[in-house]
């Protein structure tokens, strides 16, 4: 477990698979070894009308933490994260009367997973309800858990692989938590932010 930075990669005028192939070539050239695939998915539930002010629950799974089920409750004023056992999914089914799944919003990011030294790189193809939306690259630096201490290193690595699309500042979610211990729920937060952006965008984001 280390610090993870999520980065969107512009596809310009390529197709999704072509972009993945391009990145795969680049990272393989650096000596990375593919270690299977990964999948992060997100389902959103919204509260029914008679439950008071509207609330949203995002349920996410990350294949990196296969035994866990993450959820983020968005009450409008604050967000409450929760890491739970896999049985949480079944609980959500039971709560069908209060929280109903939004139609056509299932978002997921999946693709190959590479390991290169202390880094773990995941090239994800994002789809929202089966429609291709873009490319998300996840870079994890495993030996460190404090983002502030390894951001520079990760940025350098990312700039080497992804080029100029990488910002020199940390993502806004992490910028406020640079000196805190990084936890898996922070990864989930980043994914949710990107998924929300992808959902809002009408077609393919460039």
């Amino acid at each position: 477990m280390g610090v993870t930075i999520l980065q969107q990669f512009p596809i310009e005028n390529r197709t999704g698979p072509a972009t993945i192939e391009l990145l795969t070539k680049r990272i393989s050239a650096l000596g990375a070894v593919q270690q299977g695939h990964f999948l992060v998915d997100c389902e959103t539930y919204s509260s029914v009308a008679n439950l008071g002010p509207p609330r949203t629950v995002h349920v996410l799974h990350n294949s990196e933490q296969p035994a866990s089920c993450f959820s983020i409750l968005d009450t409008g004023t604050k967000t409450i994260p929760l890491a739970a056992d896999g049985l949480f999914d079944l609980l959500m089914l039971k709560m069908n009367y209060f929280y109903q799944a939004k139609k056509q919003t299932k978002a997921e990011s999946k693709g190959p997973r590479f390991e290169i030294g202390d880094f773990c790189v995941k090239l994800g193809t994002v789809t929202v309800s089966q429609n291709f939306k873009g490319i998300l690259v996840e870079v994890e630096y495993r030996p460190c858990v404090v983002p502030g201490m390894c951001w520079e290193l990760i940025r350098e690595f990312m700039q080497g692989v992804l080029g100029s699309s990488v910002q020199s500042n940390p993502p806004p979610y992490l910028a406020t938590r640079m000196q805190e211990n990084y936890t898996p729920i922070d990864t989930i937060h980043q994914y949710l932010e990107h998924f929300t952006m992808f959902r809002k965008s009408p077609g393919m984001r460039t």
Partner: protein
Amino acid sequence: MAYSVNISVEAPIENQIQEITYDGQEIYQSPLTVSESLAKYAQKIDFSKTADIVEPKKEPGDIPDDKSDTDSKDSIQSSLWPWDTVRNKLHSALQEVCVLADVLAIAKEKRYMVLDPVPQEPVETKSIVQIYARKKALAGAASVLLTGVERLKTSQNEVVRNKTDFHFELLRLRQNWRLKKASNSIIGDLSYRTAGSKFTQTGMFEVTKAEDDDKTNSPPNSPSASGSTPKNSSALRVTVPSELQGVAYIEVLCQKDQEDLCSANINLLGSGPPTSNPDVHWQQKLEAAQNVLFCKELFNQLAKEAVQLQAPIPHMVVGNQIMATVLPGIQLIIGLCHSTTGDKKPPVPAPSKSDHDHVLEHSLHQLLREVHHKNTHHPFPHPSTGPLGPSKKRYLAGPMAADRYELLEMTKSETLLEQIIKQAQHFFMRMRTEYVLDTIAKEVKDPLITSHWNTLNSPTQSCVKINISTHGYDAVFRTPLVIHVGEKSLKCICRVGKVMHMSYEPQELRDLIFCHINQHQILAVQALAKTMGWQFLANSSHLGLGSVEPLGNASSCMLASPNGDRLIAVRCEPQAGVQVSVAHSPRSDFFPSRLVTERKWEHLGGQFRDVRLEKMEGRNFLHKMELLMASLTSNS
């Protein structure tokens, strides 16, 4: 009789001491005069005694007045005169007698006074109280009788108990073993299933009533034991399945080139000689059967694991034997010995008992029990709807967001065979380390090598602390080492904190210790030189000069005397030992040669000459060096 001796008893001449003055003089009380002593004795007379006897005859009415008068007079006048009380008592007695005489005289006339017997009032007795009293008395008597009955009953019961009673025996059997009734027969279960065992073999036994003809048969069977048969014969008979009959034990042997190194016999019944006599009491019979079951389960488990395990040198399972390679050349053999018929056969070869390793025996026991325990005891708390089985760590994996590596780690578990092999490996590693250290300590006398084994260790890890020091100089310098003995490797933490990893080969440890002895000598000389005021010029722990050493490098150091006119060079080699050379500066002898022509070059230090250390005085190397330095210093 004939000799009558006059014994005169008289009061001591000394009078009572009244006071002792400060100068030690004693002031005696003056003896009493005749009149005084008479008064003293008269006061001792108790007149009230006689007065009591007289009293009942008097009329109750008039006496108290008189008495109170005289008493009050007494109290006033008693202090005035010593005879006062006597007089008062006599006076009151006279008065009473006078009154009595008067009363008698009046009564005699019968004109004014008649004496009538006064009828005494009968004591009223209430019937209810009487009944209660009787009841109480009867209850007391009854309780005495009842306790007697109770005692008789218990003694009677004991007589019955000593007799063989099927139902009573069954009750006792039921207290210790699981029984159930199936149609007409009683079936018992001696398996470890309730304790968490998952062994498939059933441990069923049948309980039947012993027939009388068995009893009649048994005395001729063993006439010598006829005295004990009435005790043993019970009305109950248990029948265990044939595969659980007999005696079983698990034999653990460690072999090196067909030579037994140690062995252990695992047996639930402890060290007592197992018997397969059919006439033994059901309790022993069931225990023996349970032991057979236990051994079978243990062996079954081990055999299963031996087949499944992927070892570099595959484990062999042949018949009732498992062979596993612990270390190269050393094999662990676990065998199941089960004899069903042989009560005449000599059971265990005696010599192997001497190498009985209780630790190994205990470990195997513990390991299987632990498996049983884990099967029944699930970690708390677990939700009633959740699955049973996963560890507590696995339960927390979800909420703690464990990643795939952690989850993978959780799935790994050690089998019994792996654990016992590890313990055996550690056992050999410990033995080898002990042997190496002991032999080195015996071989090397000059620096002393002491090793302390930690008393607290685990079955697979122990730790030894080694101190290299020189006798008499342990305050000057010492080299501590710590060696962690693992399963297949050794970890040595050296003096400067450097960590060395070694394999199971004892030669590696031996070489390491020799290197450290060598290092100790050269460092100790330097420390000694410091205390002697000698200067320390140069030091090299890995000298490139000289012949090549088979192990390690030679080390050397150069020392100069306080005023710099003498030099000592020490060279230490792990194999060849220590060489010491001495040089003078300025050189004591100067011969001009073609190269060195002038005398001014003599300050360049002379040639080194070897010191023959073995000819020197001194207990050990450091002592010799101290003497050498001392002699070279004093010369200048």
